[in-house]
């Protein structure tokens, strides 16, 4: 199994009545999976459980052949750095770095800043229409441009698992479809798994496989 598998996953925050339980969830390689739900329903919590940023009380999260619960904290970090691409809801860019530096940041910490990685990052930037801002500081760009930098950063190191939290929220419809095309194309080409959190029902046709988070919570 090289996709994503969740089995009997249980999670709750200490002192909170919020409960999340997933009996089983599978995301096949080369496919996208949509997570729907209103604000505060627990979409981001589930995403963080799937990436190993939160630890479940019980159950299993398996990314490819790697069971996250079997890894130490340091191993999970290393795994995320090399195998996982994350698009944060608030983009989480470093304003004092240029577009190029932001996109190549995870690779720099992996000591993988080769010319080909830089070329690939540049190519992604061009496709996301932020190539003209390559040497500009991220802090100088608009919300939409920043969101596209965050997407380029998530894909630049060719991760096998991409988790995107509302990646099209700040984009107009033309750019939204361009970003979605890029994400789907990447998923197919790299046989990667894409899990995308969204509340945009217009995007649901792109995700034949999807779930509503409310179904997992109590």
């Amino acid at each position, binding site marked *: 199994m090289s996709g994503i598998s969740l089995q009997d996953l249980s999670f709750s925050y200490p002192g909170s009545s919020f409960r999340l339980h997933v009996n089983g969830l599978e995301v096949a390689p080369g496919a996208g999976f949509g997570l729907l739900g209103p604000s505060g329903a627990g979409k981001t919590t589930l995403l963080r459980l799937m990436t190993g940023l939160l630890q479940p009380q019980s159950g299993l999260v398996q990314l490819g052949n790697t069971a996250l619960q079997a890894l130490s904290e340091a191993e999970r970090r290393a795994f995320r750095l090399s195998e996982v691409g994350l698009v944060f809801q608030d983009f989480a860019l470093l304003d004092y*770095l240029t577009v190029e530096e932001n996109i190549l940041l995870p690779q720099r*910490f992996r000591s993988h800043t080769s010319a080909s990685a830089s070329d690939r990052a540049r190519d992604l930037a061009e496709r996301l229409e932020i190539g003209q801002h390559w040497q500009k*500081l991220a802090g100088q760009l608009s919300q939409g441009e920043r969101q596209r930098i965050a997407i380029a950063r998530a894909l630049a190191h060719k991760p096998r698992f991409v988790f995107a939290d509302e990646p099209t929220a700040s984009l107009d419809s033309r750019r939204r479809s361009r970003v979605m095309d890029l994400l789907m194309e990447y998923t197919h080409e790299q046989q990667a798994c894409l899990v995308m959190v969204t509340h945009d029902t217009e995007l649901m046709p792109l995700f034949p496989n999807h779930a509503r988070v409310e179904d997992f919570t109590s």
Partner: protein
Amino acid sequence: MMLAALHLAWRYVARHRLQTLLLAGALALVITLPLCLRVVVQATEATMRERAVSTPQLVGARGSALDLMLTALYFKRQPLPPVAMKHLHELREANLGSAIPLDVRFHAQESPIVGTEIEYFGLRSLRIANGKMITRLGDCVLGARTALRRGLKPGDAIFSSQEQVFDMAGIYPLKMRITGVLTPNGTPDDDAVFVDLKTAWLIQGLAHGHEDVSTTRDTVLKTETDNLVANASVRMFNEVTDKNLDGFHFHGDTSAYELSAILVVPKDPKSEALLAGRFLKGTNAVQLIRPREEYDALMSTLFQVQTLAFSVLGLTLIAAAAISALVFALSFRMRRREFKTLGDVGVSPLALSLTKLFEITLVGAGGLALALIITLFVQWNASTWVQLLLK
């Protein structure tokens, strides 16, 4: 990982360069102050030491020994009670060593005019680099730096400055002929204008020159026995020339003429001890000091002040370090979200700690570099500044 952490730290510091510069500047100042203090004290020591050591004894009017030393050795511009010429004669009659008179009361703009005798140049190893030595009344030779700074050469002229601007009855500035320029010796001599002792008295007004009253009858106010009294129309000379040289003359008892100090070079240790003994009496109008001892006392005081300043500056340094630590702590606290994101992406805690450490190191290194630059600048100029302080 190290390079990535360093790169991230550098980019943050470079992006916030004003804040970084302020913090580094504050650190630099607290590091620089004790260093500069040390540099200035060392420069003072170096500037004053050789001169004090090379002057065995000094005679001057009773009063502040330090003032006497600063005036006679460094030509510091300050009021000093004069010593009469008769004491020079007494010292010479004692035949215990050579006595060199010094008159350091007048200036040519910023340059002290030093009235002395030819032995002074031998004592200070001063030679003529250009031109010739003083040949007559009204001549002067320039210290090397004075000549260079004012672009003067032999054949040019220099005026003495009026010491009292409001002294309407005072004497006019004397135009002096420059006969030579001295070799530099890196001491206050380089900034001086040297004249014969009589020229110094001429500047003081003890001597003067005017047209011959006996041949210009309309300048005579009244005729007395063996004496002619001139009226106000008599033409006074403010420059000594070969033509009017004979028109200059001194009035009064020359043994009462005043000097600033007398440099004494005893023949041998016994003579030195005998000379010291002669001036021991507290009732004496004059005193004899050993510049070396005065210098040691001055440096001892300076070192005490330095030690005290070091203690205060040490506390300031601790306070500055504590404030810097607080600034960094607050900065990192404000950037918690940024570091959390990096951690979420997969950057290790070690790499994040290294990033923070590099930021602190870069600011600290910036502060040290600034401190070094300031200290080198102070060191470069310290001796000039000390010489200015001694003026």
